[in-house]
């Protein structure tokens, strides 16, 4: 009896804040509902609309574009910084804190600051570019580079967290491997390629999965910085779901988008998990 009592807080939380919303969302996908009117049963209309909705598929492609830029960029920079911080350098603690600082700053604040930095006419980055004789870049108003600009900002914001993870990975590589390699006359690159990289492989996979899940949740940055534009080029899947729900009150349709999107994320994570296990 006491065991039921002990798990009851978690069970209440699970039922109220996880199970009920999930079940309600699934029910919602078969209804048309604008929050304040009666729900109207529409069968599978929301799903058939979804498969013809050009914007939803575009938002998925945009999210994937973001991931393709963001994940490699994040891993390479985080690994490079972690490798640098793992050396005997001056003010190591200061640099570690500095790289981690953006992680603890609110995403909204970071995005607002970068929006100013990216300004085409008054932004600091363009002012610097012009002062050294280069042209202005339409960072967030050109459809071809807006998502890349957001990926750069997101990388800057999150890289500190992955630096810490890589640092832990690097410090767990046994020193004796490097000593043996030194005896064999291995170069710095060879030691990195054949000792460090294989040894931190689990960390790389973990960072990839965390970045993927974080990337799929892309919302604050395009919501504040571009509103999904220009020409829907930064419209992420989550932003599109949000707009359908809270700008146009298409709760049923939004729930069906969310469900399909959750399924896609699950598939990606399952594939990644399979690859990790296969590798191990």
């Amino acid at each position, binding site marked *: 009896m006491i065991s039921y009592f002990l798990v009851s807080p978690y069970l209440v939380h699970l039922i109220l804040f996880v199970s009920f919303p999930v079940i309600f969302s699934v029910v919602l996908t078969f209804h048309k509902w604008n929050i304040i009117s009666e729900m109207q049963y529409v069968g599978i209309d929301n799903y058939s609309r979804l498969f013809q909705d050009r914007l939803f598929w575009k938002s998925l492609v945009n999210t994937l574009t973001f991931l393709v830029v963001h994940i490699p960029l994040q891993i390479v920079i985080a690994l490079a910084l972690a490798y640098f911080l793992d050396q005997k350098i001056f003010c190591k603690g200061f640099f570690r804190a500095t790289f981690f600082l953006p992680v603890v700053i609110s995403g909204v604040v970071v995005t607002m600051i970068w929006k100013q930095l990216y300004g*085409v006419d008054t932004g600091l980055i363009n002012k610097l570019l012009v002062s050294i004789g280069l042209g202005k870049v339409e960072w967030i108003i050109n459809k071809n580079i807006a998502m890349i600009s957001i990926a750069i900002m997101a990388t800057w914001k999150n890289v500190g967290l992955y630096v810490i993870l890589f640092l832990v990975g690097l410090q767990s590589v046994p020193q004796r491997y490097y000593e043996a390699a030194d005896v064999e006359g291995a170069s710095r690159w060879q030691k990195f390629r054949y000792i460090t990289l294989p040894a931190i492989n689990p960390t790389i996979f973990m960072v990839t999965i965390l970045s993927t899940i974080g990337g799929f949740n892309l919302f604050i940055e395009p919501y504040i910085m571009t*509103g999904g534009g220009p020409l829907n080029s930064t419209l992420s899947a989550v932003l599109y779901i949000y707009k359908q729900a809270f700008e146009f009150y298409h709760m049923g349709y939004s729930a069906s988008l969310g469900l399909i999107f959750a399924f896609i994320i699950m598939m990606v994570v399952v594939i990644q998990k399979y690859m990790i296990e296969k590798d191990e």
Partner: protein
Amino acid sequence: MACSGGNKDRDSVLEYWSSNNIGEITFSREIVEAWNLKHPESTLKFQPIPEGQSSEEIILAAVVGKTTPDIYSNMWQGIVEFYAKANVLVPLDTLAGFEDFVHDRCDSLTIREITSSDGHIYQFPWKINPFMTIYNKKFLAELNLDTLPNTYTEYLNAAEKFKKDLDGDGYVDQWFGNTSVRLVWYQRLFNFYTLYIAASDGLPLIKNNRAFFNNEYAIEAFRFLQEIYKQSYFSKEDQTAGQDPFLAGKIATKFTGPWEIEYLERYKPEGFDYDYFPIPVPEDHQGPVYTYCDPKSIVIFNTCTEPQIAFEFIKTMVDKKGDLLFLQTTKQLPRRKGLDTIKAYENFFNENQRLQAFVEQAKYIRGMDNCEVITEVLDIITQEYEACVLHDMKEPEKAIADAERAVNILLGSQK
């Protein structure tokens, strides 16, 4: 307790929410205090709308949570139909004395505009902020124009003369004007829709549940704005953050309402002078220029069990005395016919000369169509606006036609 919604005091019969604009809070507090003194048997509790990202979100949350106040002022006219269709508002025309009241206050055009598609009226027209073009007098005087740039061609010519690369870096940094480039539906009210109303003398966007805007006026408004961005007469950057570009002398004009006056009077640098002229129109436009007036209404939610008392209170809020107090405390215009002919307001307008242009403009205004999905209609227009006006990727004719097609599909799916 007579009403079910809200957190009323135990002794209050009704609860009233105003906007959280400081002037409107002062006005509402005074009106409520006066009412409570006179009507101790049916007192009101007043509070500004709770803080949130937008008042629309708060009202929606209150409706969902059934915690709406009995009375809410500052409801955007365009959203009333959404709530009316959801049966959360009291049809005011069912209240005793409403017909006489509304005909006394409003002209037939306004009454037609606020009448819902089901024939009922769910809103009291309360206040307006008509849009006009504000301009920096010094800048326009330097251009030596024969007349103010009232037409599209005159405006574009003046813009060409005014735009400059001040720091010599090869890029324009002094623009003729500025309007929001944000891709949010309501921002189109302040540029495209205002220009459309001006060009068309107030034609609707939606008529008989079909898109009505595929006409020369919408196309020309798109073409005018497209030219503005193509020639860098306006910046494509969102200039809402940082220093006000109008006050900073970076732009010469902008489309704005009378709320700007108080702000400018408070913050303008020495020697800064400004005035207003109507929204630019096509060359062949004849007669007075109409504009969008950003109308806000007062509504009674159906959680109110004493709607007749609520109505009696609202009447004191918007009678001639109430409107004068509103003018004095907020410097916004009541939506009332013959505003410039009412003797009681003469002194106020004489003391506030800057408002005169808006009082004159208030004779030629238009609000928003009664359409349940107007926000989506404006979002569709925003999509085409972006492609055509901001990125020059479509001809205005095609952009407007595409918007018309998408809106008709949307309206068809609502039947």
